[in-house]
């Protein structure tokens, strides 16, 4: 300590300067305050109305471009009962699981999500383990088949591997349908679902997993359970299906919320 004390003292000694004291640069002359956009307003005033409407400042153009490039965070299925549970639709970068063993509109919700995504020009993929996709019915439901990649794996493992490839490619919506009970192939380990969810988060892909029983574990953002599917018959004809959807789990919303979804048979 004794040795370092002089050094510290030296640090605080004022330097003997022979230079003249520094002088500050004179402040810039005051700028008259200009109202933002006033110059542009003056220019517009001199132009014809049709031309003036097309003249924009750089800031306006940037704002407009930012608004245009901002992708909505949600892909709505446009089925109000389902979207309401998730706060508006499937969130980009998140994995939502839809579970039901009975006929409770799982496939119909998946079709609606695909129809919605493809109708706005986004690329979607259906990993169809159950191999139950009917192109004609999907087209009637509004799915743009040109923007939908149909993948037909044979086991859960292949389904998860395929989905991982699709997510990494940049598909905006990937739907995995595990089909009906019993699911083909063995269950995928929890780590595979966690990895898939992380990939989806990185590439901002909305994911919907439709399964007869819960499979994604902690990887999912939300789990919706379908129950009480009630077929509606009128005069001996099947008219539709009514079911109750329950939000079983959500990381940011209160679980336990319910809604009723009614679907109609194609007339």
């Amino acid at each position: 300590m004794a040795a370092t004390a002089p050094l510290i003292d030296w640090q605080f000694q004022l330097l003997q300067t022979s230079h003249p004291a520094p002088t500050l640069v004179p402040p810039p002359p005051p700028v008259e305050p200009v109202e933002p956009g006033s110059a542009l307003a003056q220019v517009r005033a001199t132009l014809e109305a049709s031309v003036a409407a097309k003249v924009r400042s750089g800031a306006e153009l940037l704002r407009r471009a930012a608004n245009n490039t901002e992708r909505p965070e949600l892909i709505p299925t446009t089925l109000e009962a389902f979207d309401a549970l998730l706060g508006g639709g499937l969130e980009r970068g998140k994995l939502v699981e839809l579970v039901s063993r009975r006929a409770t509109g799982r496939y119909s919700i998946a079709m609606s999500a695909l129809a919605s995504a493809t109708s706005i020009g986004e690329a979607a993929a259906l990993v169809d383990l159950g191999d139950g996709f009917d192109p004609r019915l999907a087209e009637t439901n509004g799915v743009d088949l040109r923007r939908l990649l149909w993948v037909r794996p044979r086991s859960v493992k292949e389904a998860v591997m395929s989905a991982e490839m699709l997510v990494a490619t940049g598909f905006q919506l990937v739907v995995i349908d595990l089909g009906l009970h019993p699911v083909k192939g063995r269950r995928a380990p929890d780590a595979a679902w966690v990895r898939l969810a992380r990939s989806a988060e990185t590439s901002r892909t909305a994911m919907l997993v439709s399964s007869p029983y819960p499979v994604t574990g902690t990887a999912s953002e939300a789990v919706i359970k379908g129950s009480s599917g009630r077929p509606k018959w009128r005069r001996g004809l099947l008219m539709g299906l009514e079911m109750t959807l329950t939000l079983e789990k959500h990381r940011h919303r209160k679980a336990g919320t319910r809604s009723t979804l009614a679907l109609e048979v194609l007339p």
Partner: protein
Amino acid sequence: MTSTRIACFYVPMFPLAARLRSEPELLSEAVAVVEGNGNAAHVVAATRRARTKGIKPGLSLAQARSILPKLIARGRDTECERTAQEALIEVAESFSPRVEDAGEGVVYIDIAGMTRHYDSELDLAKAAMRAADEVGLPARVGIAASKLAARVAAELPKSPTVVDPGSESEFLAPLPLARLTPQLDAASMLARWGLSSIGELARLPEAEVAARLGEAGRELHYAARGIDPRPLIPRPLPPDFREGMELEWPLVALEPFLYIANSALERLSKRMELQGFACKRLELTMNLDPDGFAARAIELPAPTRDVKTMLTLLRLDLEKAPPGAPVTGFSLVAHPDRPRRAQLSLFGPAALSPEKLATTIARLVALLGEDRVGMALTVDGHLPERYGIGEFAPPPPPDRRLKPEKSRGLLAMRVFRPPMPVEVLMHGEQITAVKGEGDVCGSVRSASGPWRVESDWWTEAPAARDYWDVELDGGNVYRLYQSETKEWLVDARYD
């Protein structure tokens, strides 16, 4: 007018370099490439490790082995050398379209006007050396106004060498005569004349040299003065890319073969990348032991350069139809195609990268099979299980953001492929119970039908079905039908 500028790629000890390119694991070993069989086998080139132990070109294999018993000897492989030469040419073509193949690890390219893309000719030469290194060839590069001077410059150990325009004779003058042309017949005579450098030969009167050595002497004198009238003769572009090798011993198992094929595919991929191509069709030809060959072609679902995908497709093909005999050599031919490209939108939804998509589809096809990936197609007719699969090539996304169309809220159906046979109990005209696999079992709560569907009555295989919708006591609703053969089948579930 732009003056002629020629760059020469030169791969020293080309037979060895080509062999090490195919077997990079031998790089740090004492390896010699030999030519000839039996007692006539002699060393053509050797690695540095072997040379430091005294192995020199010209030694017989027996002499070399007596010096270094652990010497690894490899015969000259024409397939390796041919593919290495092609790779070198493709590297050259990535710089200039005017390329001359001079054989044996020597390639000339016309670089007139190319300095606009580089700060200097030296930078260009360094870039060329790096590009050759990328394909596994340790090339040297020389740049000069004539092919001869460029070749001599490339052969110098300190590479790259750039000879300024008009100073070819000054560049050549101090070099030994052996640099001018290694296979010089008149070397001994010139040595007797007391000549040791190229400059000394250039200073002799041309007529006197021609009088003593003939026309060859006149050409030699021209060369010594840096005059090379030979123009560069560009070669036409090849239609495909080829890689392969002859194996030291026959291969029986698939895995070792795929290990070698993997490195060949990697080389192919790098070569195609240099030219901006991707592989659309892959052809494999295998030489079999003791005689014969097996050939096959693999069509890729989309142009790709992904080695993993190509290797998986190759593996699947070989597993499906093995060659049936040990493999003694192979060649892989990649038919090139332009990779898919697309202009991405600035304001609309993000489009998929066409190249990435092509690779993904190829990998999915390799994983699942050709008929299990693609765009779903509707097929004319009333039978619901019918479908088609086409190539997935999505149109570009709209250039602005759209609002999603409101869903019609239709109840979808899961189609059973193939339809599930069931037993049906009937009471009069009504179905009362269904017995099938899994959940397709129970008494019927409600049912409606039948609806007759007739299809393909104009063909030899007409279909006439009576369809029913039935709700079982579990709450599930199925669509089932009775076929012409009175068999009951469930073909869909409402879900």
